[in-house]
């Protein structure tokens, strides 16, 4: 997938702005906060919308006005697109028919794909009764049915529980490794992408802000001060201990003095030292989370805002 100076405006709203991209074989993660332009990129790649300016090429072809390209692409959208009144089998039969598949070949492929996404036992149930995870699997099955060269999966993990996430991540890796599909997968959670691939494109406000190996991007992110919230008992002693450390930028009490927010310059050092500091201070930690899981903050940092 290649994009050169690609822009898309929806009236006065910018979807993508002077976007450049070059994605090769394998699994590629598209990471960005909500509204960054990930779905716009995919719609352009599928020819659902046309570029305002610039060029886009997928598998060497221009997507807009080129339905033939869809025989080489499988798409799993991030929204509910399944007909709730149909069964899984009926849905896959419809998708198969749309890809000129029929008869025994279609039935065989439905069995094969539903087995691959572990939905074979739910094939004859109404989609309206599926869980979120089952719907995601069924959408992936629909994308896989015609055995495309390239899979575009838009937020396939969104709204799923940790167990389903693990299954879908494993499935995506398998699709690439064992079945040879090139996969472009989007998420707004970097660590989820990290579990699937090292090749990432970071999108923010319609621009590709970083492209390449995820470890390089990780280094950039790790230089960004992290805010970590720690809740628990006797937390004051831990706060004092933290203030003596080089990596601590600031410590502040949260409402009710039951917790603190620590700003650290080197998260890795912080996480390595923390168990010892907790033990030494006698604090009892009940909860800990990073405010910087909010990707928006990291992206603002990466683009220097």
């Amino acid at each position, binding site marked *: 997938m290649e994009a050169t100076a690609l822009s898309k405006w929806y009236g006065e709203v910018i979807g993508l702005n002077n976007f450049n991209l070059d994605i090769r074989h394998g699994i590629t993660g598209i990471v960005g906060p909500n509204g960054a332009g990930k779905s716009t990129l995919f719609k352009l790649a599928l020819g659902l919308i046309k570029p305002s300016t610039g060029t886009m090429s997928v598998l060497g072809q221009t997507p807009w006005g080129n*339905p033939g390209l869809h025989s080489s692409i499988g798409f799993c959208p991030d929204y509910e697109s399944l007909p709730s009144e149909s069964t899984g089998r009926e849905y896959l039969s419809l998708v198969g*028919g749309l890809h000129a598949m029929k008869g025994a070949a279609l039935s065989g492929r439905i069995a094969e794909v539903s087995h691959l996404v572990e939905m074979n036992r739910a094939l004859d149930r109404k989609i309206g009764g599926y869980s979120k995870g089952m719907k995601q699997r069924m959408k992936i099955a629909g994308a896989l049915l015609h055995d495309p060269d390239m899979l575009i999966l838009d937020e396939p993990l969104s709204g799923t529980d940790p167990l389903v996430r693990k299954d879908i991540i494993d499935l995506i890796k398998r699709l690439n490794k064992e079945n040879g599909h090139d996969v472009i997968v989007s998420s707004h959670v970097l660590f989820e992408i990290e579990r699937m691939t090292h090749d990432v494109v970071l999108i923010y406000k319609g621009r590709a802000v970083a492209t390449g190996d995820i470890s390089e991007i990780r280094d950039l992110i790790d230089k960004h001060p992290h805010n970590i919230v720690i809740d628990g008992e006797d937390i004051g002693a831990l706060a004092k201990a933290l203030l003596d450390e080089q990596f601590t930028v600031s410590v502040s009490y949260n409402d009710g003095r039951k917790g603190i927010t620590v700003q650290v310059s080197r998260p890795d050092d912080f996480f390595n030292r923390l168990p010892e500091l907790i033990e030494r201070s006698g604090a009892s930690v009940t909860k800990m989370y990073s405010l910087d899981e909010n990707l928006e903050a990291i992206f603002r940092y990466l683009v220097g805002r």
Partner: protein
Amino acid sequence: MDLETAFTGIIAITRHSFKKLVFSRKAIITLLVAVFVAAVMGYAGTQDVDPLPDGTDMLDTLILFFFMPVMAMIYGASLIRDEIDDKSITHVATAPLDRAFSYAGYYIPLASAVAVSMFVVNTAGFLAFFAQNDLGGEALEVYLEFTVLVTVGAFVYSALFLAVGVLFKKPVFFGLFYAFIWEGFIGSLPGAIQKFSVKYYLRSVGADWVDYGRMSTFEEASDPLASGLVLLGLLVFFVIFGAYVFRETELT
């Protein structure tokens, strides 16, 4: 794209859309309209009437020129538009099938569903009125003539409202205006302006066939063959126009 791919794709969409139309709440609307028409015509049939002309006028006014465009609007204006709005159009839009062909997969089941629906309404009204008065050969002739007219109307109005549904984001507003104001009012005005309605051409065709009621004495009727060709031309135009708009529409 080869013809077989196009044909298989059209059949897949046709099957899916037809099932959606037949098993939707719209089917209940058809039944309610049929009950309403049967009740109105049944009651009229109990009054002091001249069966053939009065029954023909009721089929003419109530079914062909009121419920015909209304039902086509109810079924047609939302068929593709709803799928665009709730994004369930995705599997069609990402298929290796030119959207102009996909459009045929929507039009065929729509026109068929509207035709079946109007057949049910027409039959209910006819039986409710004529069963009380006269179910003879002449009445059956009127029934067959109106069955043909509602079938032709179903195909033309379906083409119109399906295109409206693709063209407008809120097709119901335009549909209501068209069905009630344009067809209902403009189409009933004397003079040349009524020629800008589908109703006029249906009535012109009917004037040549139907021997009873106001339709048989429709003085401003055009030549029936020319009217039939105009209806065919409108159908082809609306289908091609709708398919073109659907093909060029960005699905955001």
